[in-house]
């Protein structure tokens, strides 16, 4: 390494005590060399001694940083203090590269009030939750299906409010996790098309990621060092993270293109419940109340928070009272693997923001059909939040006139809107693969048991301060969603986040209330409320403990009240 490659701290970053010690040393040397020089203040002090001490301290710190950043143990002990470039250099020895930030993408629904063709230019800007997105190509909204011929043609479809809707795909301008906006978030176009009514995110946006932090990179390095096999927790994580799919496509010019993808590299957190763990119920399927082992439940958080999925299903009329019919539909295990909950059921013409119909009866079951090896899931409750979960759902449709419909015969399509943790089925298939499944083991992938969190807090800020509420909501949501399987969510974490974000402008926080809605696998709900810390109840018999539950939230669940405060003497 050349000296020019050292990463020099700024003078302001130097340790004041170390600088003072070096200055004292230089002063002693100079005084010994020339006792008559006055070194307290003046030319020699200001123009020679102090700058020399600064440069010496800067060099010393750069060398120390270089030495420390070459030491894995030092980096792991304090990842935040190391310079990213130094960490990159050191971990480059393990052929690890920091993952760059990536662009989020998703679909925007645009609602217009007339059935006329609309052209949306490539690069058209939409702002969603404070993040700018641009269309990835030119889109043409057509008035009839026969005109939809090209990949960028979209059909204008009639909505229940007698407007017309079409969709475009957009990509974030800046690569960051903040681009993963939620389905239903309002999209504001820079240039409104003719007859514009509104626009919103039609899907949960995905793909956006911040650049890997030092801590994340070091964690990946540790996982990478582990043997890639079903043995201990780091090794199991390494197997999933490093799983690479190689896809080769033939190009028209005779060449081939090879693409490598790592579908599980973005795994946020996992918790392994195995033999001896109180939450492990599947290894007690015996006559005797003992754990026999050979069962492992892998609770995963594949994304920072849940995603919203809209699935079209056909329902059958099962009863009716007057014009209101009760309809029933079935959710197969492949429809929304491991889903958390159904938030609403929409008519197919409803847009995302329609209130829809609530679920009246939901019965979850297990679907263990299929050939080949299957995990031991002996009870329906054990299949909840796994890819083997299925459900039967009933709801009352208060919009469709059921008077003339025949019970048991009439059928109609509905869109079921669900909250899910993605990749549950993919991970189950991955571990079920005969080439990967441990011969003496039985692995069941489960989405982390959800505790949906909402937060309310009052921010007392200096009068005159402008608070970006959306940014505050996002920061709080990120802090909550970044937690692993911690068992508790302390208010102090959120206070720290708020003070870090707003700095001196935030004088204090008040009235922080944390609310959690924990969906137990047995279908019951636990309501948690605290001003100081949300603690997961210890109910291992319900598979609910800190090892199985994840706190999940979204920006909109963070309520902020800003109160300007006059500073005495300001």
């Amino acid at each position, binding site marked *: 390494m050349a000296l020019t490659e050292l990463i020099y701290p700024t003078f*302001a970053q130097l340790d*004041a005590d170390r600088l003072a010690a070096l200055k004292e040393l230089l002063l002693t040397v100079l005084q010994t060399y020339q006792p008559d020089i*006055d070194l307290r203040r*003046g030319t*020699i002090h*200001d123009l020679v001694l*102090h700058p020399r001490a*600064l440069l010496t301290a800067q060099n010393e710190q750069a060398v120390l940083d270089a030495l420390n950043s070459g030491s894995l143990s030092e980096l792991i002990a304090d990842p935040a203090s190391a310079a990213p470039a130094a960490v990159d250099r050191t971990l480059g020895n393990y052929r690890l590269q920091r993952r760059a930030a990536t662009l989020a993408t998703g679909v925007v629904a645009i609602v217009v009030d007339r059935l006329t063709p609309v052209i949306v230019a490539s690069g058209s800007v939409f702002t969603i939750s404070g993040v700018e997105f641009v269309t990835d190509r030119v889109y043409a909204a057509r008035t009839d299906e026969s005109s939809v011929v090209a990949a960028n043609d979209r059909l204008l479809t009639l909505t229940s409010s007698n407007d017309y809707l079409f969709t475009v795909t957009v990509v974030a301008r800046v690569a960051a996790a903040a681009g993963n906006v939620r389905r239903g978030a309002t999209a504001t176009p820079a240039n409104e098309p003719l007859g514009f009514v509104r626009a919103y995110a039609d899907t949960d946006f995905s793909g956006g990621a911040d650049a890997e932090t030092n801590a994340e990179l070091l964690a990946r390095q540790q996982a990478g060092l582990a043997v890639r096999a079903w043995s201990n927790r780091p090794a199991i994580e390494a197997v999933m993270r490093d799983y690479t799919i190689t896809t080769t496509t033939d190009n028209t010019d005779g060449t081939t293109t090879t693409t490598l993808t790592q579908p599980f590299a973005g795994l946020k957190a996992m918790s392994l419940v195995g033999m001896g763990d109180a939450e492990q119920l599947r290894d007690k399927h015996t006559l005797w109340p003992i754990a026999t082992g050979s069962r492992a439940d892998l609770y995963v958080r594949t994304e920072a928070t849940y995603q919203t999925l809209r699935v079209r299903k056909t329902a059958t009329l099962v009863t009716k009272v007057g014009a209101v019919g009760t309809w029933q539909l079935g959710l197969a295990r492949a429809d929304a693997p491991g889903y958390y909950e159904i938030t609403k059921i929409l008519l197919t013409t409803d847009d995302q923001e329609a209130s829809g119909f609530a679920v009246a009866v939901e019965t979850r079951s297990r679907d263990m059909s299929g050939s080949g090896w299957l995990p031991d899931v002996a009870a329906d409750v054990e299949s909840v939040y796994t890819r083997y979960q299925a459900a039967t759902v009933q709801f009352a449709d208060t919009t469709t006139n059921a008077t003339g419909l025949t019970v048991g015969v009439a059928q109609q399509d509905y869109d079921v809107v669900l909250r899910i943790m993605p990749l549950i089925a993919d991970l189950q298939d991955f571990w079920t693969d005969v080439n990967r499944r441990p011969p003496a083991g039985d692995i069941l992938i489960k989405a982390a048991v959800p505790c949906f969190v909402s937060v309310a807090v009052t921010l007392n800020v200096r009068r005159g301060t402008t608070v970006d509420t959306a940014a505050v909501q996002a920061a709080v949501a990120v802090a909550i969603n970044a937690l692993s399987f911690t068992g508790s969510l302390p208010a102090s974490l959120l206070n720290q986040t708020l003070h870090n974000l707003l700095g001196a402008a935030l004088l204090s926080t008040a009235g922080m209330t944390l609310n959690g809605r924990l969906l137990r696998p047995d279908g019951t709900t636990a309501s948690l409320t605290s001003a100081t810390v949300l603690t997961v109840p210890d109910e291992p018999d319900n598979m609910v403990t800190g090892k199985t539950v994840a706190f999940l939230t979204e920006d909109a669940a963070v309520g902020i009240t800003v109160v300007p405060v006059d500073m005495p003497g300001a």
Partner: protein
Amino acid sequence: MSVDVAIFRVERRQNQLAFAPQVLADAQDSGRTCTGQEKVAQRFVLQLYTRLGSLPQTTDGSDFVVRLTQGKVTTETDVFVILASAVSDVGNKLKAVETDTDPAAEKLAGVRIMQLTLAAGAADLRLELRFADGTVLAVLIPLNFVLA
């Protein structure tokens, strides 16, 4: 008696020092040292003219130049006000590094602003440094700047 490297060209008359522009190296004055009251006066001027915060990791300097260049100086009174504040601050800083072994002739007893004259784009500043041995030294400092 300790010495320092002289950073200014100085004209000395009886009990009066007139500081000329800064010079560290030229054919005439380079390598000159100063001692006694000239050394203390030089410290004072250096501190007065050093922007507070411009030397990393120290509180050396004063806010005199900082405030002069903030564009809020429009009258002689404005200059006087910020000068008075800075002179007091610098005086305290110099006293803070004095030791018991320093000769009384190098111990600052007080500073007074005797005269402040503004002309177009320039100011003449006359300070009076009083020392612990009872002696008084007048210090003349030219200052070039643009009045708003």
